[in-house]
């Protein structure tokens, strides 16, 4: 056998963001044994990355909301779950076992239930030139800020849409690193989307005012802010030198050293897809998500998917959904009656969903930025596959997305389609006049993250000993 040393727990949780941490806290409170595996060096996930030891002296820079993660991380540290930091989970099997790499060795953990809390990923914004050196994602700018208190050098701008774009711009302003511009797609009147949905604005009142206060603060910092931007092109020969775009009042070209792109986040699908959990296309949000039941049940027995990895609703909802899944698991494993608490969680989640619906509508990425218009634009970065290559393959008798993957190598690189999966599916749908549901999502093969050969060989040597 090649799973020697497998540790067994009641519950195995992958991911130590708000969803994973909350699930662990709830499970431990009911006395379940629990292991949490996470790739980062400290708990917090993307949202509360490095919250325990952030280098930022001034708390107002990252804002109060970031620091609300502190107490959650404290509770998590104290809850008694086995916490394996720096663990890269690369395989999930139907018997609720995960294989992971940690400290140059392979380990296994098996649960009676398994919670996937692997969060969301930034949606790639495949404008012409998006793969040029100097072009990065807004998320990566924020990671630098949180983990190293580092700000971009030179002249930079942020482009795209979504709350993270505005929040990061504001956080950078507070450090004194003022963006040369914010280039926003979509209409200026974001509040319109909320006001057209009175229920959403009532439920999301706090969040709405928060957004408006960011806008006011950005105006105070006098950041040039362009609205209704389109035809955004990152320009340069071997690295970024400028960006050009259209906006409401004309066209613009700005000299830049760096451009940060963002158009929202989507569930991280690789782990669920690798064990063939069903996925569904949401046309409203223009994304793929795993099919889950009311408590996060996937269609694989014993596997729960929670947080932004199941449905992008933000940190607060992630916390609730992690707890909700744990309550259901507690009920299943111990028989303890958790029905009332689960009902409370489900109501809270519905509230978050209402608000989020309006938010998603306000920040919906334009179709042109989901699938490149130009044939020359790269879609799969790992394998340098362009939109033109994909369109050609789609017309060369490919019955579906897996043949397109095979014909073009799109999605076969180190990121295992994490970045391009949705773009390829949408492009294929467009090119063949079908819906993304008909086209489907690429099959994902283990390992979902690359594994060093030496570690696998050591496993065989141990087994033969």
């Amino acid at each position, binding site marked *: *056998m*090649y*799973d020697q040393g497998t540790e067994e727990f009641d519950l195995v949780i992958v991911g130590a963001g708000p969803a994973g941490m909350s699930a662990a806290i709830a499970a431990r409170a009911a006395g379940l044994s629990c292991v949490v595996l996470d790739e980062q060096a400290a708990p917090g996930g993307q949202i509360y990355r490095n919250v325990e030891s952030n280098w930022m002296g001034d708390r107002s820079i990252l804002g109060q909301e970031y620091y609300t993660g502190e107490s959650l991380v404290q509770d998590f540290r104290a809850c008694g779950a086995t916490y394996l930091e720096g663990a890269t989970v690369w395989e999930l*099997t139907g018997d609720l076992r995960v*294989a992971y790499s940690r400290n140059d060795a392979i380990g296994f953990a098996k649960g009676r239930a398994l919670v996937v809390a692997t969060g969301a990923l930034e949606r790639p914004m495949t404008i012409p030139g998006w793969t040029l050196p100097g072009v990065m994602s807004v998320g990566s700018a924020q990671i630098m800020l949180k983990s190293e208190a580092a700000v971009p050098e030179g002249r930079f701008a942020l482009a795209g849409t979504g709350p993270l774009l505005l929040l990061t711009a504001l956080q950078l302003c507070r450090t004194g690193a003022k963006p040369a511009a914010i280039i926003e797609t979509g209409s200026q009147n974001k509040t319109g989307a909320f006001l057209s949905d009175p229920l959403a604005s009532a439920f999301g009142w706090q969040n709405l005012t928060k957004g408006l206060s960011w806008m006011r603060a950005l105006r105070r910092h006098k950041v040039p802010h362009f609205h209704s931007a389109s035809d955004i092109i990152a320009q340069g020969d071997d690295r970024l030198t400028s960006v050009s775009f259209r906006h409401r009042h004309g066209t613009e070209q700005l000299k830049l050293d760096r451009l940060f792109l963002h158009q929202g986040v989507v569930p991280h699908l690789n782990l669920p897809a690798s064990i063939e959990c069903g996925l569904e296309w949401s046309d409203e949000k223009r994304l793929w998500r795993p099919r889950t039941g009311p408590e996060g049940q996937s269609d694989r027995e014993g596997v729960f998917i929670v947080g932004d990895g199941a449905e992008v609703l933000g940190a607060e909802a992630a916390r609730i959904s992690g707890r909700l899944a744990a309550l259901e698991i507690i009920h299943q494993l111990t028989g303890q009656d958790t029905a009332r608490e689960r009902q409370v969680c489900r109501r809270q989640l519905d509230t978050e969903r209402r608000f989020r619906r309006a938010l998603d509508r306000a920040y919906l990425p334009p179709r042109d930025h989901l699938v490149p218009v130009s044939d020359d634009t790269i879609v799969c970065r790992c394998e340098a596959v362009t939109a033109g290559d994909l369109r050609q*393959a789609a017309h*060369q*008798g*490919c*019955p*579906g*997305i*897996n*043949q397109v993957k*095979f*014909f073009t*190598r799109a999605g*076969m*690189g*180190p990121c*295992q389609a994490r970045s391009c999966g949705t773009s390829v599916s949408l492009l294929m749908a467009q090119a*063949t006049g079908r819906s993304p549901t008909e086209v*489907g999502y690429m099959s994902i*093969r*283990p*390992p979902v993250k*690359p*594994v*060093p*050969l*030496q570690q*696998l*060989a050591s*496993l*065989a*040597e141990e*087994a*033969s000993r």
Partner: protein
Amino acid sequence: MRRDGNPITADIAVIGGGVTGAAIAYGLLRRSRQVVLLDEGDMALRASRGNGGLVWVQNKGLRCPAYTRLSLRSSLLWDRFSEDLKQDTGIDVAYERRGGLQCCLSTSEAETRAGQVREMMAACSGDGLDIRMIDHDEIKALEPRIGADVVAASYSPHDGAADPIKLLRALHAAILTRGGQIVSGPSVEAIECNGDGHVLRRNDRCVEAGQVIVAAGNGTRALAETVGVHLPIRPQKGQAIITERFEGHQKVFVIKARQTNYGHFILGSSIEEDAPDLGTDLGYIAPSVARSLRILPILRHARVLRTWAAYRVMTPDSFPIYGQIGDAEGVQVAICHSGITLAAFHALELPGILTGAASVDPITPFAATRFKEAA
């Protein structure tokens, strides 16, 4: 995709859009025949999407010289085949005949292998077959990165490799370029003989053709049953491991540790009977990686990118089946587990044989009837 339910008509219908079916369809079109290629949907088993791209001779046909000769013949046709595909489609399928190694990690492995080589050479050296055993130093001259544990290897200059991805794509493109029709979608469920022609039934439509060639891999067995013929074809699972791109270049191809033209290594190749699914498992992968590191120790710094498995199309004696099946005139099959090696033969010579334009001699040893005697 057409969904109107009107029947499609063609001189010849080829069932199976993998490398084998597509190569035959391409070859028929080259002979100016009117062809429709029927392909399954996106989730077809498709061994053509799960293979290492080897065009390999040295391990083909132990105790079956006819199969050795067929593989050698196809390998020699590959230059012309890849050249023609490039002319037709602009796609370079990256065929190179660099020679190949099969590595032995102990003296007993080497002795067993040397015995096999002697036997094959005794049978086919007169046909121009060249396989020989070489020692560690000779191997090192061909592949300087070879590990100290490799005591010997069999070497053949005939062996080569192509890019199987580009091959399937080029074949499909060439079929369309030459006016063939590719219809993908639901599987063909039945073949019916109808006067002087045949009707193929799918759940969405029918196809009418004078001649039918079944190249449907593991799906061939069920289709043959519909014309009352039992073909003993079984799926045999093989797992493989793909590494990240790695620097360097192999001067010779090493079976089970081949570097592709992109730089990835393809390691291992399991043989599993009665496998319930196409999952990959560490029980095969870990020891297989350990063996690969003994062959090429530099790979310990590489990472596994992906593992996959596919079903080989296997017969009781492991050799292909070609030609007419049963009494059903005009229904022929073409199945094998080495569709890449044999693709050149399938495209350039088999179509002539199956349409009566060339002698059937090369395929006589591979008739379906040979299994009746065994049964």
